[in-house]
């Protein structure tokens, strides 16, 4: 499976490797892992099965047949409809910083590509862009990709990775919930399959909209998935929550996720499922 070739090419020629260049520490179990091994494992810890968050480009590399991805709606960018400012300054500044940091214009990349030869429309959220928050540009890209899927009779796959709605766009960001779901209603009307993949984290307004209305719900192991935040709930019920609360595994037990799929198996699983959905 093609994997991170671009990033690896860049990282391949270190001048004089320091310790930190050779190994990394698993953010979850703190085990030390050789960087090569970590990358080969698709940034999954083989001790604790922790799945590190990926950039949208890494996702493309893991999921799509090499060279098949075509980006769509690339011009759609963040907006500042409220001219929002908080104590740390204007939202616009923060957004620009995020663009520079990530090379993205919004928290999601959308496009079309092939999964083991099957053509799909796909939206991939990227947590690096303002915590993968759902804002007007995000919603618009997700909607436009649904319409693209309908026009081309393609299955739609959305990978969620989001802390929820982006407050900086106020009510406009809230309205991306009905907006994206309205697009998915059209997709359903066209009888096209929709697979929702929940990665760490899929919470707030994203969990309560497009992520939760898939024909099939797949989650990466140990991903955080939920509506309200753990702290808010603990304050509400005045009780500690169990350790595994709102994990992907917990959601399977409670009936909201069809299956947990390890990153290395995701692509093949998707193509298998798509065949049951009649996609070729």
């Amino acid at each position, binding site marked *: 499976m093609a994997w991170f070739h671009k990033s690896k090419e860049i990282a391949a020629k270190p001048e004089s490797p320091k310790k930190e260049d050779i190994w990394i520490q698993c953010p979850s179990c703190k085990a030390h892992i050789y960087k090569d091994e970590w990358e080969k494992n698709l940034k999954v810890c083989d001790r604790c099965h922790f799945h590190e968050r990926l950039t949208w480009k890494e996702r493309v590399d893991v999921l799509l047949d090499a060279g098949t991805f075509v980006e769509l709606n690339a011009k759609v960018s963040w907006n500042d409809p409220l001219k929002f400012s908080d104590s740390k300054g204007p939202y616009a500044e923060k957004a620009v910083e995020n663009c520079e940091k990530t090379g993205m214009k919004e928290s999601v990349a959308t496009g079309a590509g092939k999964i083991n030869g099957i053509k799909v429309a796909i939206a991939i959220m990227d947590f690096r862009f303002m915590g993968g928050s759902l804002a007007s540009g995000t919603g618009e890209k997700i909607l436009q990709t649904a319409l693209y899927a309908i026009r081309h009779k393609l299955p739609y796959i959305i990978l969620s990775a989001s802390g929820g709605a982006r407050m900086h*766009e106020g009510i406009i960001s809230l309205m991306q919930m009905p907006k994206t*779901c309205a697009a998915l209603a059209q997709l359903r009307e066209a009888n096209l399959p929709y697979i929702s993949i929940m990665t760490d984290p899929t919470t707030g307004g994203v969990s309560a909209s497009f992520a939760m209305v898939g024909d099939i719900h797949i989650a990466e192991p140990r991903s955080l998935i939920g*509506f309200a935040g753990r702290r808010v709930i603990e304050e509400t019920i005045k009780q500690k929550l169990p350790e595994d609360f709102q994990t992907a595994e917990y959601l399977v037990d409670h009936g909201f996720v069809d299956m947990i799929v390890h990153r290395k198996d995701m692509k093949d699983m998707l193509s298998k499922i798509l065949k049951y959905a009649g996609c070729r």
Partner: protein
Amino acid sequence: MSLDFEKDVAEIESRIEEFKAKNPEPTGTLVKELNRFEMERADKLKEIYANLTPWQTVQVARHPERPLIRDFISGLCSEFIELHGDRLFGDDRGMIGGFATIENHRVMVIGHQKGKDLDEKIKCNFGQACPEGYRKALRLMKLAEKFHIPVVTFIDTPGAFPGRDAEERGQAEAIARNLLEMAALKTPVIAVVTGEGGSGGAIGIGVGDVVLMLSNAVYSVISPEGCASILWRDGTKAAEAANALKITAKSLLQLKIIDEIIPEPVGGAHRDFVTTMKTTKKVLLKHLTSLKKVSPRKLTSRRFDKFAAMGRFN
């Protein structure tokens, strides 16, 4: 109960009370003086309410005496037949609904119920609905679709209930499902934000062909306090957050999130239920009559276009 920014009015009111106590049966100039007081009070109230800040509007929207869904139902409807249950798990008291008649219109009314006294408030989680509430709402909407009657929702919630059980039973799924199904619903939907339009808990019954809002209601992606504590790292900066979030009816009309403002009587809906109901009814009837003429296919297609356009700036 008088709000803190109403203290000038409260002062005049206490002067009036004093005056009345001193002059139990005023005549002649005393009557004139009393009238002057009353007018002074009315002017002050008008002045204050004409210039409410967003944060002050939040106070009015949350006023403990503000009309709740049962007040709207009894004020607007000549008949109400409550229907219970989601047919899956329970009957959420925080979300009520049923058949109702508004003048000559038979409709399905659905909305958040905050509760009047503490007992009732506890039973309905202070208007924070649970998954079974959203699923009950959906069941009633599908019933309305089958029976070809319009849906009217009344939105008044601090947000969906953030409890452990609610999470386990799929708060996220229930809201998401409603958003999708409401978009596809083949019957007219009118949503009225009457008090607090609290985030996902509000939009969960808010996908309307027409979205109305009482003039002192608020509608927001997050509570001003919540936003302040995250973005200002200081919960007391709620007033600033309220300002920044653009949560008032006026701002939301400009942003094309709502379609029309239902003006409240001077001093807020809680000061005059009768006028509030009269105005609300008039606006509702206008839209019910006009939506009746639209075919189901056109309705859903227009509804899609409406929400698709939100946050489209390019």
